[in-house]
């Protein structure tokens, strides 16, 4: 079991290798190889001749040249320096200078999965991947939902992003514009539900006026009052989903539950940087104008989050890690850390 409690967790929450991590957006992966870095591993991703994703260690076993600088041939990839050709299972299938393929010549092949518009890889023991599913993310693929989003690298340890998603109370301080006004006066209780692999945390807001942008895209009067429900979920170390339901009432045709999903794929690059891909999906107001209202607001909010986490990482790097004080509202964060410890144990990490 890895240490989190004593040694200052900023640098010590280990992300398990045995888990699915988004390595690239689906549309970014094609017949041109793409380079990525996941948990300090070089990865090259491409599509085979039938369109299936392939992920290999991005380092030729003969020359150490990145395979991502080579080219895809059929289902295989050829190193742009040594000419070694690798199959989708990572094994060398031919070398340019001799008939015989060197025995055992191979790079690591990572199990892949394509779901929710992302290519995911499993950096852990390959045989275990088939036994671990990734929750379905139907709103990211269905035509009934409109999705926009963005992605970037946050210069902070991935556990800082986790802590951020597990804490739904900081929004009031970080971005009062995005936060429901009712939070300032009477925040509703948070209910945290813990299972072996997941943590969910939610709260129900009493009927109250919406944020201005919500009223605008829903085309309801700014002073009309509606109940809202927010539920965040830790689904895997690299996957968080927040769901936001707005109960529209007394508005004729527009009545009903309007749902927003906020999907976050977080992938540790190394212990100081994290790839963050975010998607906002909705089942109402499909017009580009509504996207035009929401997109800048949410981008601005997530950029503020990125800025805050990078600032925290700077403080930790400059002055050293320290154990943070937690409060009762951090129950989800504490539950997530418990699952992370467990997954690290499953990885086979042993006390030094």
């Amino acid at each position, binding site marked *: 079991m890895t240490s989190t409690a004593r040694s200052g967790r900023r640098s010590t929450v280990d992300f398990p290798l045995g888990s699915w991590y988004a390595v690239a957006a689906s549309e970014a992966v094609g017949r041109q190889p793409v380079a990525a870095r996941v948990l300090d591993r070089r990865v090259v991703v491409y599509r085979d001749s039938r369109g299936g994703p392939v992920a290999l260690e991005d380092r030729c076993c003969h020359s150490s040249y990145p395979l991502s600088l080579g080219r895809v041939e059929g289902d295989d990839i050829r190193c742009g320096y040594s000419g070694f050709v690798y199959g989708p299972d990572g094994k060398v299938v031919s070398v340019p200078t001799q008939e015989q393929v060197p025995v055992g010549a191979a790079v690591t092949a990572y199990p892949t999965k394509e779901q929710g518009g992302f290519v995911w890889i499993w950096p852990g023991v390959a045989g275990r991947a088939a036994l671990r599913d990734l929750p379905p993310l139907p709103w990211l693929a269905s035509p009934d939902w409109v999705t926009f989003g963005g992605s970037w690298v946050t210069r902070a340890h991935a556990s800082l992003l986790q802590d951020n998603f597990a804490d739904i109370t900081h929004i009031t301080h970080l971005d009062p514009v995005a936060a429901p006004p009712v939070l300032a006066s009477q*925040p509703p209780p948070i209910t945290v539900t813990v299972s*072996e692999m997941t943590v969910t945390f939610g709260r129900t807001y009493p009927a109250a006026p919406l944020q201005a942008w919500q009223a605008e895209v829903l085309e309801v009067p700014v002073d009309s009052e509606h109940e809202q429900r927010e539920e965040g979920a830790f689904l895997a170390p690299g996957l968080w989903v927040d769901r936001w339901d707005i109960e529209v009432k007394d508005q004729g045709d527009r009545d009903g539950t309007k749902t927003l999903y906020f999907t976050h794929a977080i992938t540790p690059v190394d212990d100081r940087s994290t790839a963050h891909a975010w998607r906002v999906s909705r089942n109402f107001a499909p017009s580009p104008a509504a996207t035009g209202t929401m997109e800048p607001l949410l981008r601005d909010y997530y950029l503020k989050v990125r800025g805050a986490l990078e600032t925290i990482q700077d403080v930790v790097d400059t002055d050293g890690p320290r154990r943070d004080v937690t409060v009762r509202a951090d129950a989800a964060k504490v539950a997530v850390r418990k699952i992370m410890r467990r997954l690290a144990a499953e990885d086979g990490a042993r006390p030094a």
Partner: protein
Amino acid sequence: MGVTETVVREAELDLTIAAVDDVSEGVVAIDLVSPDGGELPSWTPGAHVDLLLGDDLVRQYSLSSDPADRTRWRIAVLLTPDSRGGSKRIHEMRAGDPVRVRGPRNHFVLAAAPAYEFVAGGIGITPILPMIAEAEASGARWRLHYGGRTRTSMAFVDELARYGDKVTLVPQDELGHLDLATILGAPSPETLVYCCGPTPLLDAVESTCSTWPSGALHLERFTAQEVDTSGDQPFTVVFQRSGIEAVVPADRSIFAVARDHDVTVLGSCLEGICGTCETEVLEGDVDHRDSVLDDDERESNEVMMICVSRCRGSRLVLDL
């Protein structure tokens, strides 16, 4: 700014019994499904659930099905003559009956390793079944040594047949006890040992493995360890997140004291076997009395089970 109340609970589900099968003498396997046919929460080998069988009748059972099958959970239950009520109640259940289930949770995690020795005694085979499926899938070397009273009393022998000679069946009436000295006599640095079964078997495996590297042995107990509580002393506990300091009297648990002060804590078995109340320790020296943590975890002093464990000194600070 208002106060944000936080309530923490474990996932609870109202499930339906889809099938009850006699799998060996005295053992029934129960299939649990969601009444609406929906997916059940994900779990990993070694996980268990609580069955809420009535007032104060909560029992833990390992999941023995395939973790990749999200539509069905299977547990197996031995009818014990000295049953405290759980196994008798379950043996009376029929297909179609509703049952409330809490969890899953896992304190018997199968760590990745190149090789495993699995040792199962009797109904202790249940968590081991999905473990060997995972060991097989991951390409590890493994062996299962499975002991039972008689061949007909041993559950899931048919399912194990496909693994061939990786599985050794040892019915006691034919072959005597498991020969632990031979099975575990020579420590192997890359091998992990996983054992589940009756207390005497667990104790014997623990003592045979004393020469193995620390962290190699993993076992799961479903019976609380005997603890001498006669010398218990009061001590101070600080629930740091809640900002509360309280005294834990000699005859009460930290868990009970937390509840007294409306500090949200999760608990289930309240006898140190299910791991639900695991809590991070911030300061102080823990007197561990649970059956969940291994020696390394105890020595690290990072977490404790607050339903039974206490303090060696005068003060404990907990992340509650």
